């Protein structure tokens, strides 16, 4: 390529670059100044509307004029308010918010969005309906949305709608391929609480996948009697993580049957299970397990030794006595762990044991 051609070509590229750079700077300036103006305006609108919204939701002398003020706001601000208040209010205020959303047309628009072909639009629709605590077929259909973020949003909403259909859908999603959804399902089932226990027990009886570990995590949080039988059965499961979780369910439930299973699990081949069993014995306050826990102070696994010592201290005076005796033990591991746990300030111990 000769010099003059190179120069001509270079100058043309430079002209394009200059135009592009100038354009970008202008766009930044526009975006910055418009953005600043827009943010200030929106902040002003939100600040004024929050008072109105609070009056409408608390029932403190609301008026039609208040509602008109909200109606006059841009749709984006109305939706931002609904999301903000939807997360903050409870009880009768939620019903008022739901009714208000209906009157302002937000509910209809959000339901329409739930049918959008774009996932982000469906997500926003689901968030708005969730904030309005609105139950409709459009939202329920999104429990099977192809996009995990949308599905997770609806699974989160579902915790507030604990009917049989929703609970079954939640439990079925314990095997969802997306981790975000499995995380949300566990959270939602814990928030549903006792009504979910039966469906969960059935799941524990019929499923044999690794999803059992997630289900048992929820079972521990629910701590309902119908979960004892499947938990005891799953203490024999071939997967160590499932056995460990089953053991921890027993720690939350207690009972004579549980105590004998836990003592047996203290001898499990897997350290994860022994650790969970040691913790569970402390949780159920089973004094009879003190000597077995004392033996575990010399376990080959550090976490098992630590949990055994913490459980002993948790047992109260009997356990503390055992720990003090362990300080004279010939096993240096037992001595160290007993000494450390006895040294822990009460506040730290309670946090660890919680």
């Amino acid at each position, binding site marked *: 390529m000769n010099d003059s051609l190179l120069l001509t070509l270079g100058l043309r590229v430079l002209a394009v*670059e200059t135009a592009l750079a100038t354009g970008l700077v202008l766009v*930044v*300036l526009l975006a*910055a100044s418009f953005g600043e103006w827009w943010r200030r305006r929106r902040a002003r609108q939100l600040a004024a509307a929050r008072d109105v919204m609070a009056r409408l939701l608390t029932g403190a002398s609301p008026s039609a004029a208040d509602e008109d003020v909200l109606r006059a706001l841009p749709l984006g601000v109305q939706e931002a308010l609904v999301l903000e208040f939807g997360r903050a209010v409870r009880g009768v205020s939620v019903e008022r918010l739901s009714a208000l959303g209906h009157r302002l047309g937000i509910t209809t628009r959000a339901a329409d969005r739930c049918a959008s072909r774009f996932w982000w639009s469906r997500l926003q629709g689901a968030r708005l309906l969730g904030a309005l605590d609105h139950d409709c077929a459009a939202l329920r259909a999104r429990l099977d949305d192809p996009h995990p973020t949308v599905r997770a949003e609806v699974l989160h909403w579902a915790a507030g709608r604990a009917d049989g259909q929703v609970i079954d859908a939640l439990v079925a999603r314990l095997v969802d391929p997306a981790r975000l959804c499995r995380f949300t399902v566990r959270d939602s089932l814990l928030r549903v609480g006792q009504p979910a226990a039966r469906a969960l027990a059935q799941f524990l009886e019929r499923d044999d996948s690794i999803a059992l570990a997630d289900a048992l995590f929820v079972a521990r949080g629910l701590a309902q009697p119908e979960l004892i039988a499947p938990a005891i059965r799953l203490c024999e499961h071939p997967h160590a993580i499932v056995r460990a979780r089953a053991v921890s369910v027993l720690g939350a439930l207690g009972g004579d049957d549980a105590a004998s299973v836990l003592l047996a699990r203290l001898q499990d081949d897997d350290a994860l299970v022994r650790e969970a069993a040691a913790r569970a014995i402390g949780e159920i306050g089973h004094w009879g397990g003190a000597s077995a826990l004392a033996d575990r102070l010399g376990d080959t696994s550090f976490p098992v030794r630590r949990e055994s010592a913490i459980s002993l201290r948790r047992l109260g005076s009997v356990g503390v006595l055992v720990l003090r005796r362990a300080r004279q033990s010939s096993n240096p591991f037992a001595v160290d762990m007993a000494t450390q746990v006895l040294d822990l300030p009460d506040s730290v111990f309670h946090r660890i044991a919680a």
Partner: protein
Amino acid sequence: MISVPSFVYSMIFPVFDRAIFAYFMLLLLSYGTLVAAALWELIGHVLRVRGESRQWVLGSAVSPSISILAPAYNEEATIAESVTALLALHYANLEVVVINDGSPDRTLEVLRDRFALVPVHTIVWRRLDTKPVRRLYRSKTHPNLVVVDKVNGGKADALNVGLNLATGDLVCVIDADTIVDADALPRLARPFLADAATIATGGMIRVANGSQVSGGRVLEVKAPRNPLAGMQVSEYLRAFLFGRLGWNELGGTLIISGAFGLFHREAMIACGGYTHDTVGEDMELVLKLRRRAYEAGQRHRVLFVPDAVAWTEVPETVAVLGRQRDRWHRGLADVLWRHRRLIGNPKYGAMGLVGLPYFLIVELLAPVTELLGWVALAVWVLMGALNAKIALLFFALAYGLNAIHGTLAVLADELSFPRYRRTRDRLIVIGWSMLETFGYRQLTVLWRVRGLWKFLRGRTDWGKMERRGFAPPTVAAPGAASSPPGPVRAPA
């Protein structure tokens, strides 16, 4: 003017010209791809998190527990404020592990007084080999605070002690002088909830110089007036928003800044924790994590999260900045040398075939090529072989690309997660970005070449890092300096 043999004109100059041109085109292609991938990723991320409630993650009993590891060396002036800010971060299941790396000053005494520390019998589960631990402390007033006093061994050793002590599912690594946004942790933890294959996430490091800082929080973000700090703002924006984010899409993320990163604890321990004898321990750790995952045939993800923000004070003097850049480049060279067998190896997927070759050719060798370009320019001037118009044009083209790259980064920042509240500050950042090419850029080239030279000569020291500090002036010591933002350069 020097007389030039004819074969130089006919053979050497054209070859050299073409080599430089080819390298320039490679840089353009790399940066173009990274910018496109980053913008795509950024749009998706903004759509996902817009309007999301973080209370959901914060308040859930299912959320993973996090242990923050904060190594400290001679931080008596700021440690109490830093730890208080860490304890106040918005995350329910949080543990803070402060590792006093044998500070000769009053760091430990300050901690003991401020947080009512009591010694407990010192036993540590030594899953990683470290220098001896002197004493373990727990706080009567803050049950989630653990303080460990150990024999000095550098940042990597301190972090390994922290790893031995941490109990969280995830481990957050920060520098003791890093200011973390109160809601940054749930943002950084989100990818771990979304995908079980996530083994590490890194947050956005922003420059705090010039901003109003109080009580361990950045209260008002302002653009720095100091030229060196100002130009680093633009560099950091480009490095994180384009460099890091672009690699999310391309699967070649190799750097999680040691100033603010979140890791899967068991994965970290399984790969042996931090390596002691390198100054690039952040990148080394990520490479080890990914290498191990590839070798075990495990699907894994290392991600950058643009809305999880931590703030750092960048050097404002030429000497300190020079030492920092020299060290970063030595670290890069060292890590690439240690893992040289992975470069171009298809067994290591995108990391081996794309990420590592990029870091070798574009990141490591860029300063050498640029320096060669400047030297060649001088030689040609002396030989009278230079077409001044073309040289000037080439410089203008490179400058233009740099300006576009920098402005695009400011625009992407503005349209995604803006921090500057005043137009004036944005203008100042753009201004610094435009001035970078004149002097600053050439200095960074020299520092990085110096780093490479030192690496070849086997130097592994950290160099002294002086900081003005957000509070009274402090001096951070070996191992306590901030970490590289990664790729920061524009084509030239």
